[in-house]
């Protein structure tokens, strides 16, 4: 995407259904004040900030897919101010292309397993559409098409300053074996804002994708046990994952993490502890000064601004899958080499993969 | 032999009557009304329901016509009119002086009225009460199970469920239920009332009980002047 020009941007149309748009092309303000999922809102903020920095004018297009050809397409071209690029923000359900323009993709729900699954299905269905992308924003989509490996060029976009949202809420770790729902309720009842940390924490933000990485969860659960039993090893700050449903509350997020721990096979003490604490929302960058930040490969790293990466003492990229793609992406994005720690299965329940049915 | 009658013309210029051929009960007759000089003043088909025709056992009650005339009622009443079959030109009835019938005339002033006036669909299942011979012919040709299946498909738009099928078949074989009685029961069911469907009239191709092949379409006569009230 070149600077000083017009960029067409589309978002999943499901978020437009309640809006009274002025037309097929609409301005940012229509979305700015709309009800949007937090990850989409962040993605839009990132795009808007990046466009502003490049003096690129953004025009949102409601349904790019309706301008297939002929008069409809001519009309779009006439209205689009000479735009040569179209950025499709996708939730994985579809990839909207405008033929003839350079199409770019921003898959924003990184780490949301259902959305990643949907994107993978789409790639299998229309790989050529993805192969033709001019770039992917903050993504590592790679696939094999015939004998070719396809990886649309990465376009790194990042916040200089982490967007300030609602103040983060901290809740204590609570472990009630076999009753994670109630543990979630009890933990959420203790929610507090701006709880002071005795020293720089070890911060591990989670997503559902990270929680589905069994060896990673085993290792995290082991760390939780160590800190709960010896608070001096803390504090361990666990970023609660976004859930794939609109009505999810903090208690549900806590429950999702505890459920994952219970599947790890690591025996945790029946205790509650502020040495291990959950955080819903983005922690105050000041609280992360000198912290150790462990990012799983399935975490949308771009949610964090440069201010946080500059403030933390150490950043590690981790996960049990192949990390070469994410490491390359993250290092490029960050502008410096990032230490990578690949976790191999050691303890806990081993995941079972069935091959052929006998 | 074709039976037909030009009954009257309404104040609104609609020529009313009926026509059918008892030898060809499944055929809808295409008709024209001619002046003495052969000018066609109205055309259409005898395909509407009238209760008195059903009572008279004339083509199941489905052989009435209402044809918009190109001339006003007074002009029509002053002339001798011939009702002819459009395909053959055979004269079916000659009316020396067509009476003018004074009735309250209703145009379709609401969408509901347009839908309610739809002559291709039944207004009530009772309009099939005169179709007993038609149903009997269907059963003779296709069998009782086929009739029950067709009845379910026609009224409810679904296959017959085994329990319903068995019980109605038993009743019908015992003579405790007539074919029309079955249709009436299905149309009175909670299922139909909660999701009413459009039921094609017996003169429509979609009326599945008319098993004989549809007659070849008759050429319509073209009216001589601006009779099209549209």
């Amino acid at each position, binding site marked *: 995407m070149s600077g000083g020009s017009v960029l067409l941007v589309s978002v999943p149309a499901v978020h437009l259904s309640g809006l009274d748009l002025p037309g*097929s092309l609409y301005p940012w303000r229509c979305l700015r004040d709309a009800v949007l999922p937090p990850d989409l809102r962040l993605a839009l903020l990132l795009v808007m900030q990046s466009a502003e920095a490049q003096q690129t004018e953004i025009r949102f297009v409601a349904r790019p897919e309706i301008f297939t050809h002929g008069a409809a397409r001519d009309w779009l071209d006439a209205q689009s101010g000479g735009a040569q690029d179209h950025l499709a923000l996708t939730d994985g359900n579809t990839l909207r292309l405008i033929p003839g323009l350079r199409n770019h993709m921003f898959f924003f729900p990184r780490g949301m397993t259902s959305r990643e699954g949907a994107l993978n299905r789409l790639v*299998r269905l229309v790989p050529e559409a993805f192969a033709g992308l001019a770039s992917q924003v903050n993504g590592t989509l790679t696939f094999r098409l015939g004998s070719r490996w396809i990886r649309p060029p990465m376009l790194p976009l990042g916040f200089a300053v982490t967007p300030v949202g609602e103040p983060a809420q901290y809740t204590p770790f609570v472990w009630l074996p076999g009753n994670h729902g109630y543990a979630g309720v009890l933990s959420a009842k203790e929610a507090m804002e701006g709880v002071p940390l005795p020293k720089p924490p070890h911060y591990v933000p989670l997503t559902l994708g990270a929680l589905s990485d069994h060896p990673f969860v085993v290792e995290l659960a082991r760390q939780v046990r160590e800190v709960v039993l010896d608070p001096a090893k803390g504090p361990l700050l666990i970023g609660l994952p976004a859930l794939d449903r609109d009505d999810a509350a903090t208690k549900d997020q806590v429950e999702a993490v505890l459920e994952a721990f219970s599947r790890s096979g690591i025996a945790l003490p029946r205790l509650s502890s502020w040495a291990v604490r959950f955080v819903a929302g983005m922690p105050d960058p000041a609280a992360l000064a000198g912290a150790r930040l462990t990012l799983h490969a399935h975490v949308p790293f771009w949610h964090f601004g440069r201010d946080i990466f500059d403030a933390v003492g150490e950043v590690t990229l981790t996960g049990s899958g192949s990390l070469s793609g994410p490491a390359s992406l993250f290092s490029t994005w960050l502008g410096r080499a990032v230490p990578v720690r690949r976790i191999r299965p050691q303890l806990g329940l081993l995941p079972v993969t069935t091959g052929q049915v006998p | 032999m074709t039976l037909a009658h030009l009954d009257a013309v309404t104040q609104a210029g609609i020529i009313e009557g009926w026509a059918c051929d008892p030898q060809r009960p499944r055929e809808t007759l295409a008709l024209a009304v001619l002046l003495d000089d052969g000018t066609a003043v109205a055309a259409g088909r005898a395909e509407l329901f009238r209760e008195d025709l059903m009572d008279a056992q004339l083509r199941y009650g489905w052989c009435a016509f209402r044809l918009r005339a190109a001339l006003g009622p007074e002009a029509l009443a002053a002339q001798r009119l011939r009702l002819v079959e459009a395909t053959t030109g055979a004269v079916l009835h000659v009316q020396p002086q067509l009476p003018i019938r004074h009735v309250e005339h209703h145009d379709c002033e609401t969408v509901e009225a347009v839908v309610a006036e739809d002559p291709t669909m039944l207004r009530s299942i009772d309009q099939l009460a005169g179709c007993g011979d038609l149903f009997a012919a269907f059963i003779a040709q296709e069998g009782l199970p086929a009739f029950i299946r067709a009845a379910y498909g026609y009224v409810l738009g679904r296959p017959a469920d085994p329990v319903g099928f068995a019980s109605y078949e038993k009743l019908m074989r015992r003579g405790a239920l007539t074919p029309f009685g079955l249709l009436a029961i299905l149309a009175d069911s909670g299922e139909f009332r909660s999701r009413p469907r459009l039921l094609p009239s017996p003169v429509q191709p979609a009326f599945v009980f008319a098993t004989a092949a549809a007659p070849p379409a008759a050429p319509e006569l073209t009216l001589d002047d601006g009779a099209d009230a*549209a």
Partner: protein
Amino acid sequence: MKPALTIDITPLLESQWTGIPVFTRRLVQALDPHLRLHFCQGPNGVPEEAVRQAIRIGTGTYLRDAIHTEVESVQQEARRPAIDPAIPLLYPSVKPSPGAVAREASTIHDISTLVMPDTHVPENVAFHLDPLRDQMASDEVVFCCSEATQEALCAYVPWVRPKTRVMYQYVDWPEGFEAMDRNQPAIRLGRYAVVIGTVEPRKNLRLLLRALEEPSVAAADLHFVVIGARGWMADQALAQLSPQAQARISFTGFISEFAKYRLLRHAEFLVYPSVYEGFGIPAVEAMSLGKPVLASLSSSFPEVIGPAGLFFDPFSIDGFLAALEEMANPALQAELAAHAVPQASRFNAAVMAAPVLEWLGVPG
């Protein structure tokens, strides 16, 4: 002897034929004069007489029954007619599994399940998309219902372009409708426009509902007759409107072809605000009765409606209002109407049959 073709009649198994079942019926009727047709449902043959009976009566209720009663026992299953693998096979819609015969073709009506899955239930998305790639890979020809569908499909699957052919469908009102309409009580609804739109979000009825409160629409004496059921979504939207605005719109519910014919024939014009269509047969229906169309500037509309239409941005209430006002000009309406019948007649049975005959190497 005419060349043979097998047609998959799965769409005809619906009880109430709209959309793809009607397309299938027209396809059979368009090809009938040129080819020796056989019928199948997937890999199984279907008796010709059962299909022809279904087409004659216009519903698949009994066809479904006929096919299903065929397989009530193992013996009957064994007796089910098979399809001849040497005869080309045409699917008028989705091909659920490829390879039933050596030469296959299928039909893509639109790619809305791919590009706007938010307007479909997940089952429908899976039904269309799961077999799509295998379907096209195994096809000799992929028929697309419009250039718009062809272009959209090729944007996502470029390799399919050499296989694609446009297959336009057509309108075929029953012969007797004109006379029947003439003899019916006159329609006196005042000035009205027919609207094609159901509660589906893709049909964009919301735009019209928004427009009803606008002063320019309120001042006009135009009524809108929506062909289709109201549904709870429309109820909710209507509840937001003033009683005056509500009085300017009526819903017909499910109506017969004849009632639709009448309402279209006596309307001033058709409003077709749908956001996206693969073809848009209601527009051709209206044009065939001499009516101009006020339609979204989207997908297949400009291609299908051509000079008989006035177009607006389907997301712009101002654009819609301006187009409505323009359409209220009798001179313009007459000018557009003059193009309507010629434009509709571009779509006929011969045009529909042509690409299939070309595929089979049969002179049209």
